[in-house]
């Protein structure tokens, strides 16, 4: 089994040390799960998180760096838990899927922080961003500034694309407030879950559009 993940994420390789750090009882619990289903849900989570959160600087906003794919992130998360490099404690984190998702989150954050993703000040005009909670660490400040810029552009772009889509706009408002469960959003909007799920598909396509636009803008030099 090999990986396309490069440092500092490299671990998908059979170095003979797998599982040595994992307690026998934990391994037994891990083996009880419906892994084919769990893998599907985790892979979809990784794909959506990577798509929405990662905006590459090299004109390929629709691709992860170094030839990585979302499936690599999902596989890496499972491997880290099985190798004991991320220690799953069922008493502390009874929901294994949520725990694996947090590992995927960490991997994506590491990608965002990697030098490949670092966006130049010139391109992103970071100096224009006012941060409420400025970090004394210049690098942390830069990363946070980039995140705020990307988030702002993402939200603006989605609101523009959803201009004539009242349901999608309302759904976006709930997401902005931190509610992400379609069933709860449907209850609050007084509509069916199907309507919210349809809006989800439209919003997903809008994110795809924005990513394509971001790539094209870079290629023609329209960076602002």
């Amino acid at each position, binding site marked *: 089994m090999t990986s396309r993940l490069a440092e500092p994420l490299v671990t998908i390789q059979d170095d003979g040390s797998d599982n040595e750090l994992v307690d026998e009882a934990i391994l037994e619990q891990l083996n009880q799960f419906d892994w*084919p289903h769990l893998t599907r849900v985790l892979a979809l989570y990784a794909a959506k998180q990577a798509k929405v959160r990662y905006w590459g600087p090299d004109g390929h906003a629709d691709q992860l760096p170094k030839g990585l*794919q979302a499936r690599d992130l999902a596989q890496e998360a499972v491997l880290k838990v099985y190798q004991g490099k991320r220690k799953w404690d069922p008493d502390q984190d009874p929901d294994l899927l949520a725990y694996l998702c947090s590992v995927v989150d960490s991997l994506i954050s590491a990608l965002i922080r990697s030098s490949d993703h670092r966006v130049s000040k010139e391109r992103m005009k970071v100096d224009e961003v006012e941060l409420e909670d400025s970090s004394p660490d210049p690098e942390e400040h830069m990363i946070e500034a980039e995140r705020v810029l990307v988030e702002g552009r993402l939200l603006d772009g989605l609101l523009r694309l959803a201009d004539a889509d009242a349901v999608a706009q309302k759904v976006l408002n709930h997401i902005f407030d931190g509610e992400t469960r379609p069933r709860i959003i449907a209850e609050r909007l007084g509509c069916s879950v199907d309507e919210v799920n349809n809006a989800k598909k439209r919003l997903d396509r809008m994110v795809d559009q924005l990513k394509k636009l971001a790539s094209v803008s870079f290629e023609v030099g329209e960076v602002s």
Partner: protein
Amino acid sequence: MTNSRQRNFSESLADFLASTEGMTDKELDEALKAEGVDISGLVADVKAIVAKGERRRKEAWAHRMVAHGDSIVARLNTKSSYEKLERSHLIAEVSKRAQTGAQAFFHGYKEASDGDLRAMLAEFDAVNGVPQKDK
């Protein structure tokens, strides 16, 4: 979705887009295909990771059982082990080991058919001298 820290907008949006409540595996596969994810390859890779974990678990269990067995034999070989209380304790330990072994043995039989289970019960009854009912 993943922790108590306040999720920012992009994380929340991704959580929403990744929500899978009520989705079948077939629907999940379609959603993954739309994202360009080779799910069959990934499922196979994860299956290999899980299988390796299971091998390691069995090896660790076997190692522990051997150590436990050796410890019982060592104590049997000492003079004090012939004392009544110690012997009763050793019997309990051997019994516990047998029970653990049976649990580990049956662990891999979750998918056993009714026929398999009946055959195993008959085998255990025979080993333990349980009289068979008239069919």
